[in-house]
């Protein structure tokens, strides 16, 4: 493959929970350094798709490649073989994930949360990991909170620690699943600010969000999903400014009215 291959390539991804088909053939391509925002109503399968990319969820059809490597499977002798848990864990190292509900480790301080991945997975020495972690915490504006436990931090601070924790693995790709939805309105800004900086530094990101303004300002591509399919995609100006599809228009109108309410 050429060095200019996209960082993420998803083709015809299908996923069902029991008999309910949640993803019905998703295609997505993300170039290096690009920010893609996934928009869509509740239940449209955004979270599920994001989780498929790092194998927190297995998918039933289609393929996903990250950095040219097939995710979750290996092709040998014309057949797909499921990867072992160990090799799936190894694939996840290059993919950072930020969750809606932060999921910080409550028994560890902010600093320990950030050093855990490098020490346990990348095999970095404790001292080096600590220096890196302090630099990352400073980058998200929390150098004075390194010794605090998550329960002593505000939601916005917790989410910024979670971003630092994911960045500590030096991932090639960052996945964000509604990183600001669980936050009080006045705390949303500080998290979006950190994400904007990451985007400006050239981090490749896939962001599920309901923050239309963020998508407009930061995204290279906006993908609108509904009912397990991609309804519309394009630049923010196209999808947010002049949506072609009715479903997109309805969704955006509702989002905007909710935001100004």
């Amino acid at each position: 493959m050429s060095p200019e291959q996209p960082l993420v390539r998803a083709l015809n991804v299908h996923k069902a929970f029991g008999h309910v088909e949640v993803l019905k053939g998703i295609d997505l391509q993300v170039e290096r350094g690009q920010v893609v925002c996934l928009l869509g109503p509740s239940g449209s399968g955004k979270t599920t798709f994001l989780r498929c990319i790092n194998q927190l969820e297995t998918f039933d059809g289609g393929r996903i490649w990250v950095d040219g490597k097939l995710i979750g499977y290996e092709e040998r002798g014309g057949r797909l073989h499921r990867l072992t848990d160990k090799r799936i864990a190894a694939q996840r190292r290059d993919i950072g994930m930020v969750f809606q509900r932060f999921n910080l480790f409550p028994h560890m301080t902010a600093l320990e949360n950030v050093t855990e991945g490098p020490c346990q997975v990348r095999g970095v020495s404790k001292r080096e990991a600590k220096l890196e972690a302090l630099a990352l915490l400073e980058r998200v504006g929390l150098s004075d909170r390194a010794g605090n436990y998550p329960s002593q931090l505000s939601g916005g601070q917790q989410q910024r620690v979670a971003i630092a924790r994911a960045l500590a693995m030096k991932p090639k790709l960052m996945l964000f699943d509604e990183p600001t939805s669980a936050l009080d309105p006045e705390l949303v800004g500080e998290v979006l600010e950190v994400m904007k900086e990451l985007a400006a530094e050239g981090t490749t990101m896939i962001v599920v969000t309901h923050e239309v303004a963020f998508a407009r300002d930061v995204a290279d591509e906006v993908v609108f999903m509904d009912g397990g399919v991609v309804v519309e995609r394009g630049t923010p100006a196209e999808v947010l400014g002049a949506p072609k599809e009715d479903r997109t228009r309805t969704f955006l109108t509702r989002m905007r009215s909710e935001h100004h309410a």
Partner: protein
Amino acid sequence: MSAQPPVSADGQAGASAEERPGRIEAVPVRHPGRWVAVAVIAVLVAMFLHLLLTNPVFNWPFVFEAMNQRVVIEGFIYGTLLVTLGAMVVGVVGGVILAVMRLSPNPVLSGVSWVFTWFFRGIPRLVLLTFTGGIGALFATGLSIGVPFDFLLDRWFGTGELRLFTLSQTEINVLVGSIFGGIIGLGLSEAAYMAEIARAGILSVDRGQQEAAEALGMTRSQTMRRIVLPQAMRVIVPPTGNEVTAMLKDTSLLIGIPVTAELFFQLRNIGSTTYQLIPVFVAAILYYLAATSVLMVGQYFLEKRFGRGFGSRMAPKPKAAAGAGAGAATGGAK
């Protein structure tokens, strides 16, 4: 509207300052019932002390003499404390392994764990210990570890005996007849109970924790060891404290093996030869109470250790905070 406090404008400052309520100095609610209770309890305690101090059957000097006997102290240290410690180590380690097996996606592992728990939880400890002590009878020709059915393989292929090592019946009897047999018997029984406690603890940890750890690229076992179990301990420790005290008391069942180097057996022995039964029972009670009191202190510290990070009233660890401050001294806020 009428509820609005009459605060504000400068012109009324003097008047409103008077009206603003100050420090509360109210008369506390009286609790006459509590004083009645105190009086009743004081009388009961006095009656109890009267009984303890004046009834000659207690024979306090004999109580302490019995407690000071060498065999009694040794019985306490080996049969009671050491067996409790050993059985709990076997029980906790075994229980956590069983719980992890039980929750594993591998149906063989989870089935084995279920059967183990079903078997050992169903047997009274006295019966289990008696059986353990007598298990040597099963191996009249000794017990060998090696390839099963090797005599068939020998008959068919002439492989000879395929045995790593063999214990004679006498060796087995010595082994299971010692406190080692007690530790194994009680430990396996305990593992079955601890498995359920550990399983509840593991299940109490939010699923998002496992996902966050796996998203970092941690393997299943790293996730279990570093993320899930430390948080599960918060739920596991308190009932385990109960299990330790129960185990401490169950060491008195060692007589089933029979192991005689044990506190209660030794004291009862003294009691029956001297006809001083009440004093030796009191001596046993004092020993058990002392040991369980020490355990409660230990449990307190364990709970504190594993409660770290839970509950927001805790001050940040000064050491970590100081280190962070020094490391980031040049940075400052954005």
